[in-house]
């Protein structure tokens, strides 16, 4: 025992990061439920997007043979577009936290950066899943007839959740990178844009040649291909696994990057 003697204050057991993350998730959900404007927007926007694509653009887009109607083709694209939009709110929320003194409070309660971000991501995922269910409901009302098997549905849910979590965590990292909540919401633009140059809304063959390479190899495409195939009960090959690998990779990079960014921002 060093001669500096015993601590003045005896301490109880420290809670682990999982406890911290679940308390933080509860907080984020409570706060987002209270922000009714944003909540209504996050539920209304997906439905509006769905209706716009099906009724405004649907007639003009040639999807090729095999789809009874455009709604059968476009649902996976709308789902991922919504995942992008929904995840983007995480950036603003994280940036708000960094701006105020609350992060210092959490740090002084010995809560690490990762649990704080995990709480935001968990809340974003729950919000997004509500929106997703809503989109499915509206899609069915306007003629979407999925033919997925039980295992297909399970894989659809897994791929969707994996993308929502990964995109949310990327968004959280963007929130740490941005110096203001406004800048954060601007930076997330690219994420909401990512589904367009993919097979989400129109077949890739119809796009200009120079886009093919990107469109075929970007992370949204395997997700679209696997969701569409699984929902329509068609063979998907290894598309779901490629999609999950992309999601896992993006998540790992986002977690590592946000850990570093959090340390830099709180130095």
């Amino acid at each position, binding site marked *: 025992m060093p001669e500096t003697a015993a601590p003045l204050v005896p301490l109880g057991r420290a809670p682990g990061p999982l406890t911290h993350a679940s308390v933080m998730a509860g907080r984020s959900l409570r706060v987002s439920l209270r922000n009714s404007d944003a909540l209504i927007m996050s539920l209304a926007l997906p439905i509006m997007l769905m209706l716009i694509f099906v009724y405004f653009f649907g007639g003009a887009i040639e999807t090729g043979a095999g789809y009874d109607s455009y709604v059968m083709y476009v649902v996976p694209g709308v789902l991922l577009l919504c995942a992008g939009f929904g995840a983007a709110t995480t950036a603003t929320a994280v940036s708000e936290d960094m701006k105020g003194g609350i992060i210092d409070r959490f740090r002084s309660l010995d809560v690490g950066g990762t649990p704080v971000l995990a709480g935001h991501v968990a809340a974003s995922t729950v919000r997004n899943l509500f929106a997703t269910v809503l989109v499915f409901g509206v899609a069915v009302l306007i003629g979407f007839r999925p033919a997925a098997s039980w295992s297909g549905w399970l894989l659809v849910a897994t791929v969707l959740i994996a993308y929502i979590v990964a995109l949310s965590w990327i968004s959280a990292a963007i929130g740490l990178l941005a110096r203001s909540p406004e800048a954060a919401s601007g930076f997330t633009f690219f994420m909401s844009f990512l589904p367009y140059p993919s097979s989400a809304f129109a077949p890739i063959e119809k796009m200009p040649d120079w886009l093919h390479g990107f469109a075929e190899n970007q992370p949204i495409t395997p997700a679209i291909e696997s969701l569409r195939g699984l929902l329509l009960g068609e063979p998907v090959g290894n598309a779901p696994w490629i999609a999950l690998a992309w999601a896992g990779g993006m998540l790992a990079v986002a977690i590592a990057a946000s850990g570093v960014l959090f340390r830099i921002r709180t*130095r």
Partner: protein
Amino acid sequence: MPSPSTQEKPPYAIEAHGLTKSYGNHGKPAVRVLDHLDLRVAHGSVFALLGPNGAGKTTAVRILATLTTADSGTARVAGYDVVADRSAVRRAISLTGQFAAVDETQTGEENLRMMARLTGLSRPAARRRAEELLERFRLTDAARRPARTYSGGMRRRLDLAAGLTGSPEPGVFFLDEPTTGLDPRSRQELWEVVRGLAERGASVLLTTQYLEEADRLADRIALLDKGSIAAEGSAADLKGRVAGHRLDLVLTSRDAYLRLTGRAVHHSPETLTVGLPTDGSAAHVRALLDEIDPAGTEIDRFTLHSATLDDVFLALTSEVPAHA
């Protein structure tokens, strides 16, 4: 973890040696904010770190509360090293930063429950702790309102309560300018809260720009100047050294003015005015007037002011503090 009952307590609740910290400013030379700062806060005492804006008070508190690290120097808080035992320090202390750190959209009650859960209390224990703290800080009536609707004083009290949610008592408290920006009534209320903490045996390090506040609350006061302690002592010690009032004399001649500038803490050549430190008592003022102007011809008029922090600084340091 060793328990204090079986071993001797460390001599100080807070102990810092040679804390030094500079901030680099994109190309410009780094500014040394703390320069070999030494501090000792006995446990169970209230210690005030007094200094103007930009003196480095917040930086010192943030280092001691483990929110940032010093470039060099060591510190122990509640017996734990702030670098090696960061987690332990965090769990032993309560911090109330210069700017309230509560969730604006959550109610006072939700804020406190959340903080209590983060410190490891179970849901029911967190609810009880929140209730207890709301009661103690007189926030029970406002418990169900979002914190954004709180007044400055209420928000400060909520922030204090938030820092207290899971900390063992009597613990170590850091209060960074707890009353800056508060109206006089809220300030009084906050002083009561700090006295309450002290009565429970807490060790408190508070920072302030107000001499009066340090005087009212602290057992010991340290004057922070250019990143290190310029003077330290009890309120009475310091007051003895800085007087506490300033006697401003409007002189009749330039000669008299020049003769007195050396001992003055305030100068105004245009109006031939000098300010001299005094304790403000009739006896001292009379003695001072007699000593300076035995013939009764050199002083035109005089006014008596309470010493401002600037006066204290002038008396105890060489320069006027830079206002940031």
